[in-house]
């Protein structure tokens, strides 16, 4: 990837973090899922900025790539990149967590706005992704299905049911990305999975590991195809709350309520990054 392209993607990721910060601060006591939203900013930026074939002018296009957000609590980051991609308006973003909004904490299916599923309860996105990818095989469609999961979410048994079926049905048109920030709501090592990449490989996935904040590494992982007939999974190593040095990787930022002081300091740091 050339410098200009990387700069462009960095701007998308920066805007995701600034939007997330803004939405979380405006939400006041309701707060927002800042930690995980910051950890997946580069993943969303490269998907929407370079990889996905989606177009806000033709949201119902049968041949569009499908992006399924399984870790639904980071919908606010998704809302930001959808706004940057022309699906959502600034008014839509401003309505985040407002009463009767179409854009609550956890997203609700809205194909016109680029939202493919309703999520919020963890462990389901990969199953839906299997169904969507199967549909492409059935109808000879060339679209790809992408699913973004969290590593904490992989504690759900349903994820492993979906893993088995993705392999059985040879869904080489399915890419899952795990935002591997090594934390869940309660913090670090709550229910660690030993050797996740080895486990997934043994199940029959094509597995890639990369730095989830490095666009070159992400691009390589997303575009490499070593096997036909295997679904692909990328373990993207990330830091929770990435972007704010004082809190990066520390516990307690899964869901945040921001005071004026933190908000202003964080904002300055993100703007100057």
């Amino acid at each position, binding site marked *: 990837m050339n410098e200009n392209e990387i700069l462009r993607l960095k701007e998308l990721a920066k805007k995701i973090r600034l939007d997330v910060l803004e939405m979380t601060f405006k939400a006041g006591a309701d707060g927002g899922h800042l930690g995980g939203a910051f950890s997946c900013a580069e993943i969303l930026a490269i998907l929407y900025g370079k990889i996905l074939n989606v177009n806000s002018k033709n949201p119902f296009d049968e041949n569009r790539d499908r992006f399924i957000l399984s870790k639904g609590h980071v919908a606010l980051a998704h809302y930001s990149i959808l706004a940057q991609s022309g699906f959502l308006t600034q008014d839509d973003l401003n309505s985040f967590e407002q009463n009767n909004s179409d854009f609550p904490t956890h997203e609700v299916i809205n194909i016109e706005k680029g939202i493919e599923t309703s999520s919020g309860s963890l462990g389901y996105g990969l*199953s839906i992704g299997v169904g969507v990818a199967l549909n492409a095989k059935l109808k000879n469609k060339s679209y790809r299905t992408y699913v973004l999961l969290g590593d904490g979410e992989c504690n759900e048994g349903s994820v492993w049911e979906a893993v088995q079926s993705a392999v059985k049905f040879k869904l080489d048109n399915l890419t899952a990305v795990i935002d591997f920030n090594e934390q869940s709501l309660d913090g670090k090592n709550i229910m660690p999975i030993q050797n996740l990449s080895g486990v997934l490989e043994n199940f029959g996935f094509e597995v890639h590991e990369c730095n989830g904040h490095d666009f070159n590494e992400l691009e390589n992982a997303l575009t490499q195809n070593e096997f036909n007939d295997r679904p692909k999974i990328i373990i993207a190593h990330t830091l929770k709350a990435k972007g704010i040095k004082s809190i990066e990787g520390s516990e307690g930022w899964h869901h945040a309520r921001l005071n004026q002081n933190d908000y202003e300091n964080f904002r300055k740091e993100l703007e100057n990054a």
Partner: protein
Amino acid sequence: MSIFNYTPENISKWTRAGMRKSFGLQLSELAGVHENLIALTADVASSSSLNVFAEKFPERFFNLGVSEQNMIGVASGLAKENNNVFVCTFAPFVSMRAYEAIKILVCYMNLNVKIIALSSGFSLGVQGNTHYCFEDISLMRTLPNMKIFSPADVLEEAAILEHTANLNTPAFVRLTGLDGTPGIFKSDPDFIEGELKIIREPENNKDVAIISTGSVINECVRAARALKRENISCAVFNASTLKPFDDKKLKEISREYKIILTVEEHFLSGGLGGIVSEILAGDNEKQNARLIRLGIDDKFPLAGNYANMLEKSGLNANGIINAIKNACSKN
């Protein structure tokens, strides 16, 4: 115009198979006319005759193995892409193991997924409480967008499957009874969604209205016939649509009859009797009928075969007769 031929040959074939094993046979016929119809199962293709479907339409059949939540998730993904998706496994597993998946991935997203719950109620006999299902009506009726159907026999099963194949909404079809259970209908049941239909007229007076659902309605008809000899005149109504329920007809019944008796292979809480109680409790006009509910008490019964379970629970014809005689003596 139905795609099914309600010929003596078909009726006899379905009756021998029972509701569970008729499902795959009937769905195979529907798949012939519905090109976007897809069938999923969680390792019960042979139990449901979906293996017949799989042979005829291998590209439209997917066996997910023993993973009910994933089956619902895959169904959701396929339905989202404009497929007409039927999923099936045994009633307790699909309705309880996959309940939250059904809530979110089917009902909340309001997708075209038909859930076929095999062998509900006491159908699995000696297999015991893990395999009984007395909770599914209660669970499913609390989910917005969900429709619930419960055929009285294999003919109505065909009619209901055909109806649901034409729907573009979530639906739950509760199959009950054993293979060989005699039918209620003799020809096309002319199923209409949401209709609480009389299947046995009272002899003269409107003494008792029995309202039932599923194959246990056979016991109700037998009870009604026997009570004729005791000069108790009973009508039998078939509640084969549990949601949306026919409130209007129920309220009429409550004004015309002296006793309403609900009969179901389901816990007393939240099932057919629960539905009827709630509707009548919300009716401001004068009611004539006293409501009595027959169903399964709030405990796990000791296992036994189908006939034994019905008998122990007071849901066979004798139990129903006793309940009605008892109620009439107090009226």
